[in-house]
């Protein structure tokens, strides 16, 4: 078990810098997720921690000691790859015990450890099979088992679930969370799927173009996104954004003129704002309510029924699109003209450079 610390870590491929100086302290026992769109540098960051990629500049510390010049084999970390990367010529048991064989463990010890891990992952009947005889979910289990047998200081997982179908992904998410609780080992998990990060991680690092956009717990990121990017990336359905202009500023509130002509009054942020300033208003689907007297008027384009709730996809008068959450038994139909009320205390404001504007007082969690 270990802490992993990054100090001003940079990575260049040729003349192209892909990681622009990242500082991060990953605590012992923590489940941390690196999340971001493809090409944001999350896998590169993980590979630098693993030692599979050289650090161009900065330091990687594992348990407090510099590791950037330590070969991957000596870092005491285990990795689970997206493509599983099992050894095709070895049986499941041989795959799992390979690291022990390299470290000179006796046959009896190897067998005992492999059995113990196989029992936890419920794959004892598979031990004598070759990877080519296994299904995707089974391969994934073997890959995780191979990492577990090493009893590493930390697990590194590079999009381990993205080759599985949706049902299996859900099951494996629960299983990984359970494993983390049982093993209590540091886990660093890379994914492009914010849902995986939200459901499993203690903390999430949102990466964008080689920079950390925000670091925080899943709820912090959801309720208080620091930037426009994070607001759009975390949460499904995506947050609605509306272009707005500051109409007037009072002591307590801010009146915004929306592009379609409607106006909305929201609590005033800490930052100074002048009349006429262009900002963006962010509203999550669950903070929009269907109300005949609502501020935002438009037409329903599509409805998604999910059972307990439904999502209304609407197009406003000015052409902007938004998604609102409503009850599962809603009578609304595509083509209906509707109006939405904005729960103004739950809105988010972003300035022209994409930074979130903050509200006074303690940031109380929103329902």
């Amino acid at each position, binding site marked *: 078990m270990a802490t992993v610390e990054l100090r001003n870590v940079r990575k260049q491929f040729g003349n192209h810098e892909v990681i622009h100086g990242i500082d991060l302290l990953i605590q012992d026992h923590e489940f941390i997720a690196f999340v971001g769109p493809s090409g944001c540098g999350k896998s590169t960051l993980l590979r630098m921690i693993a030692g*599979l990629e050289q650090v161009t500049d900065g330091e990687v510390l594992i348990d407090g000691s510099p590791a950037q010049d330590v070969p991957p084999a000596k870092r005491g970390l285990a*990795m689970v*790859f997206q493509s599983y990367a099992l*050894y095709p010529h070895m049986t499941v048991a041989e795959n799992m015990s390979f690291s022990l064989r390299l470290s000179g463990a006796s046959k009896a010890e190897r067998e005992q450890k492999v059995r113990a891990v196989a029992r936890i992952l419920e794959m004892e009947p598979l031990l004598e099979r070759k990877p080519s005889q296994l299904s995707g979910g089974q391969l994934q289990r073997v890959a995780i088992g191979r990492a577990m047998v090493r009893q590493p200081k930390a697990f590194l997982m590079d999009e381990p679930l993205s080759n599985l179908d949706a049902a299996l992904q859900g099951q494996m998410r629960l299983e990984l969370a359970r494993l983390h609780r049982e093993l209590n080992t540091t886990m660093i998990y890379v994914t492009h799927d914010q849902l995986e990060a939200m459901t499993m991680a203690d903390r999430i690092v949102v990466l964008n173009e080689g920079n950390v956009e925000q670091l925080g717990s899943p709820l912090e990121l959801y309720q208080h996104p620091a930037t426009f990017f994070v607001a759009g990336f975390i949460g499904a359905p995506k947050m609605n954004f509306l272009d707005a202009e500051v109409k007037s500023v009072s002591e307590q509130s801010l009146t915004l003129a929306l592009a379609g002509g409607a106006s909305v009054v929201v609590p005033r942020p800490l930052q100074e704002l002048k009349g006429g300033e262009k900002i963006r208003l962010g509203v999550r689907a669950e903070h929009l309510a269907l109300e005949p007297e609502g501020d935002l008027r438009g037409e329903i384009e599509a409805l998604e029924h999910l059972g307990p709730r439904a999502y209304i996809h609407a197009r406003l008068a000015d052409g902007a699109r938004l998604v609102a959450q409503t009850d599962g038994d809603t009578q609304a139909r595509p083509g209906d003209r509707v109006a939405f009320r904005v729960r103004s205390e739950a809105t988010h404001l972003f300035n022209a450079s994409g930074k979130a504007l903050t509200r006074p007082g303690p940031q109380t969690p929103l329902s």
Partner: protein
Amino acid sequence: MRRIRQTRWGLAVAVWAIALGMFFPILWMFLCSFKTEIAAVAVPPKLFFRPTLENYYAVLQRADYLAFARNSVLVSLGSTLLALALAIPAAYSMAFFPTRRTRDILLWMLSTKMLPAVGVLVPIYLLWRDLGLLDTVFGLILIDSISVLPIVVWMLFSFFREVPAVILEASRMDGATQTEELLHVLLPLCTPGIAATALLSIILCWNEAFWSLNLTTVKAATLTNFTASFSSPEGLFWAKLSAASTLSIAPILIFGWMSQRQMVRGLSFGAVK
């Protein structure tokens, strides 16, 4: 449907014609080895004749076949092993740690095969003389392995490239050093490819004649020298030459026939993975 069947028949006939065309000289040589000298040169050629073993008897009496055969085995196996020992690390580094110049190096290696061997005969001969390698099995192993090296490196390089780098990374994460990664992961994964490369190298070294004729005389002479010694100053004795040639190619022919499955499997290694 009919057209497809016709094309298939056409193809089958063409393939058989080419195969027979390639095999015919070997068949003719084989037949001639059982003819008398007069029958062997008869015009028009005789297809039906009384077979005789006298040529084999004469050939084996005149030369120590087993000594030549032993050298051939030693040289082709030795050169192949040496070439593999040099080529495996080379191909590994080029396949998994390529630099901007890797392609150039590969092409340069291949370009050495475009130089006629006779172009370097004099320098090689002088070197081998000064190093005391003339007419030694080791000297011949050395030059043969150098001459098959480009092909061996190229073949291994293309087989290694088929192995996903992530599997090697996984072994590195499992604690493998570079040598262990090579021995426990890469080589076992590429066994069919390496076997095919070795087989081809053995065949090429077995048939190599230029260097064995020029750098050896008696002690290290191989079956190619044995064959050549029958196209002699006494005039051409076709039947005896045929018998000597048959004896020379028989081992490698049997070996090739036995290993053809492995060879095909290896050569289509990437395609069927």
